[in-house]
């Protein structure tokens, strides 16, 4: 069935567009086609569906529109990156906060049209948002971060006016509307394909997107590739430069690199740090990337297990890590150092910022002795097989270095399927690697997920009443509030001292592309946004 549909699309495509049995690489028609290689399969075209995996998010980013989006800025090295401080209109033409800041009213843009030509209305927005909070799973969690939990909060005022009510003012609501989750679906099409058992049309939208975005899905061959086709009528931003994007799934990283180096692939998303560094040095392709906002690669120590409940032990470990070697051998220099901070308390609210630790074995030994563990101890360091590319060399370096202060470390690599359960859900790994990054770029948002007791990414089981109170009072606070900076500095100071999570470095998200490709920007969601890309 699926296959026949694809063939039909393909035949139609061949009649109208030259997507063709064969095109020589140098043929002019390849100019409008971008070939992208990625490492993972997508498994759905619908982000709200249960079980949709991370790589599939990029489909939603490109084929659906949201009310608002983040702007793009140029970083110091000339790369483009999203700008977390700039929120731009997309389907919403303008918006207005109420005086008590407990509701936002959006005016929809009449130029916003679904692929079938019908206008995007407030009813569509409401249906889509209702769906996001009702289907449960990750979408509901992410909506909750923006204080949106119930359908009653979404109000249709008229066809072109839409209002969101929130229980208390929050700085997170508006940016949370720019993440991939609250995308707008053509509710007429979806409802026509819904059933009593499936009121939100998850089966239909899983394979048949119905949106208004700049690109449509021309075909999807699961496990092999999917193809974006430009929506010529899209008018909610600068006209995209690429007519067709072929995203090919190539499981082997070295094949992806070979394809890029040979010029058979135009763009390689998520290139490993080593390849990124070497390709940049060779100069045949360009590398674009930026440190991932609000993201840290950390060594987490689980306070539930002795002796990690002892702060001195945690500090001793923080002084014993070979930071320089890790940045060099695991991140190949594509990581912002997070060690060697000069002061014990943060000077400003920059996040992430270097912690006041550096490799100092003498100090580490002294601290260990103070903790009464002068002879060291034995422990297990776990890492994720799926992320072995950086976690394994890091683990090996840590193992060796901790050996020097008497801590005997056994390594344990855990398959991807088991990793989340063991590290984040059951939180039962004594010493392990963690790489949480917050989509919303606020330090308090990071602390909310990673330092509050019981929260998903607090895999250290860290619990501190002061942090709990600080995060609760700061999370929804406007950044302009004078108390905000005070609170954040205090949080960071506690993280410095108590180090349940020892930061190793802030990672980069890199992409390699041919010299004729421009306009690539790195995004907080770590997916490819095709809309800005040009190919000469």
């Amino acid at each position: 069935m699926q296959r026949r549909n694809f063939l039909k699309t393909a035949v139609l495509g061949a009649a109208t567009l030259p997507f063709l049995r064969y095109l020589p690489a140098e043929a002019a028609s390849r100019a409008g086609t971008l070939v992208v290689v990625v490492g993972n399969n997508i498994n759905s075209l619908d982000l709200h569906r249960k079980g949709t995996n991370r790589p599939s998010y990029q489909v939603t980013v490109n084929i659906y529109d949201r009310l608002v989006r983040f702007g793009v800025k140029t970083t110091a090295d000339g790369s483009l990156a999203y700008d977390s401080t700039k929120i731009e209109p997309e389907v919403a033409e303008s918006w207005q906060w109420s005086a008590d800041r407990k509701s936002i009213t959006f005016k929809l843009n009449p130029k916003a049209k679904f692929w079938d030509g019908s206008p995007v209305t407030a009813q569509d927005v409401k249906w889509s948002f209702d769906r996001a909070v009702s289907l449960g799973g990750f979408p509901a969690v992410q909506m909750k971060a923006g204080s949106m939990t119930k359908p009653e909060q979404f109000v249709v005022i008229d066809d072109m006016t839409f209002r969101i009510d929130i229980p208390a003012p929050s700085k997170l609501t508006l940016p949370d509307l720019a993440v991939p989750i609250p995308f707008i679906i053509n509710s007429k099409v979806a409802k026509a394909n819904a059933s009593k058992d499936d009121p939100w049309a998850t089966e239909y939208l899983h394979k048949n997107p119905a949106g208004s975005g700049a690109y449509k899905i021309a075909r999807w061959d699961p496990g092999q590739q999917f193809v974006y086709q430009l929506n010529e009528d899209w008018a909610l931003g600068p006209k995209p430069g690429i007519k067709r994007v072929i995203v090919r799934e190539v499981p082997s990283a070295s094949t992806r690199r070979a394809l890029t180096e040979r010029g058979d692939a135009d763009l390689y998303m998520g290139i490993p740090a080593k390849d990124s560094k070497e390709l940049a040095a060779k100069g045949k392709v360009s590398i674009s990337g930026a440190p991932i906002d609000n993201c840290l690669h950390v060594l987490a120590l689980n306070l539930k297990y002795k002796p990690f409940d002892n702060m001195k032990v945690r500090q001793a470990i923080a002084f014993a890590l070979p930071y320089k070697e890790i940045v060099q051998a695991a991140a190949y220099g594509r990581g912002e150092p997070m060690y060697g901070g000069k002061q014990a308390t943060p000077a400003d609210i920059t996040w992430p910022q270097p912690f006041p630790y550096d490799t100092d074995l003498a100090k580490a030994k002294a601290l260990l002795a103070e903790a009464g563990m002068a002879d060291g101890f034995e422990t297990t360091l776990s890492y994720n097989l799926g992320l072995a590319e950086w976690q394994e060399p890091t683990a090996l370096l840590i193992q060796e270095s901790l050996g020097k202060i008497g801590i005997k470390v056994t390594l344990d690599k855990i398959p991807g399927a088991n990793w989340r359960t063991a590290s984040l859900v059951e939180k039962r790994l004594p010493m392990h690697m963690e790489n949480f990054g917050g989509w919303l770029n606020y330090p308090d948002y990071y602390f909310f997920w990673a330092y509050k007791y019981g929260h998903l990414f607090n895999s250290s089981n860290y619990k501190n009443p002061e942090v709990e109170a600080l995060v609760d009072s700061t999370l929804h606070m406007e950044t302009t509030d004078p108390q905000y900076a005070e609170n954040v500095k205090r949080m960071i100071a506690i993280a410095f001292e108590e180090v349940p999570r020892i930061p190793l470095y802030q990672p980069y998200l890199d992409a390699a592309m041919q010299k004729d490709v421009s306009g690539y920007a790195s995004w907080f969601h770590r997916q490819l946004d095709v809309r800005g890309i040009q190919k000469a």
Partner: protein
Amino acid sequence: MPDQLLQIGRRLLQAVPSVIGIVIISFALTRALPGDPAVYFAGAMADEESIAEVRQALGLDRSLVEQFFIYVSNLLQGDLGLSLNTGLPVLEELLTRLPASLELTFTGLGLAVLIAVPLGMLAATRPGSWIDHLCRVLVTAGVSLPTFFTGLFLIYIFYFLLGWAPSPLGRLDILYLPPPHVTGFYLIDSLLAGDSETFWAALRQLVLPAFTLGLFALAPIARMTRASMLSALGSEYVRTARANGLSHRKVLFTYAFRNAALPLLTTLGMVFSFLLGANVLVEKVFAWPGIGLFAIEALVASDYAAVQGFVLSMALLFVVVNLMIDLLLTLIDPRVSMSD
């Protein structure tokens, strides 16, 4: 003939306990896989509540026995479940991917036969000579390399350095479209559609992975050819034929080879089954969209339905292949009884 039908029937019945065993073992094995699919598929940042929702949606909150019976009853209705990894029904996945694996395996086997049979015959005509030893060393070297290692080196040399091979991107290069679906074998489908360009494109993609796979099959085929040729050459009728002054060629190809073909066929059946398994790694290296690649990814994600479906279909395939070989043998040589 009815006698033969009866034999076939008995042969089929013999397979039944194995199939039942396979269903049970594959179920038990997949449930023993580490990790909680509910957690994996609830996605990043999912909290306990949403994980519980996913678990319920997947039916994982029921008891194992209950899950097993649900699985079996679905199976009897031809429902293999939904792959969590690709979001499609497992049956559909297997049906689209199986031709890819089979095409690769058959081509690899064909290549191996083309190389190994002449080598084996050459060795058999000159036993103990340096040619014999060389053949032996060559084919043994072939089975001594990990397939993924051979594959990657071939890609490095022929694609990356020399640029002779097309990009190792599965069945067709990026800008081709698959031919209209008839058999699922791109080589055959493209010929049926009269599309020689796609045929060549598909063939070019096949060469490296098929060779990698075929290298692994050289040794058993060459060994069996050599052994059965030797015994055929030493037999009564070949000596008689020689004594009667028939040409060397004629004796070798007509008399000896025809008799050596039977054990060779049995070996081919075994080698084929073996190659289907060995496919897994080759598919990963060459991004070949076959069932092996599907299985590896499913296994890593604890995707129960997909792993079970894969194992089950492979096992059934083995049973069918062995049955066909037996049938072929009876057809070729009536002396071979199926009950042997």
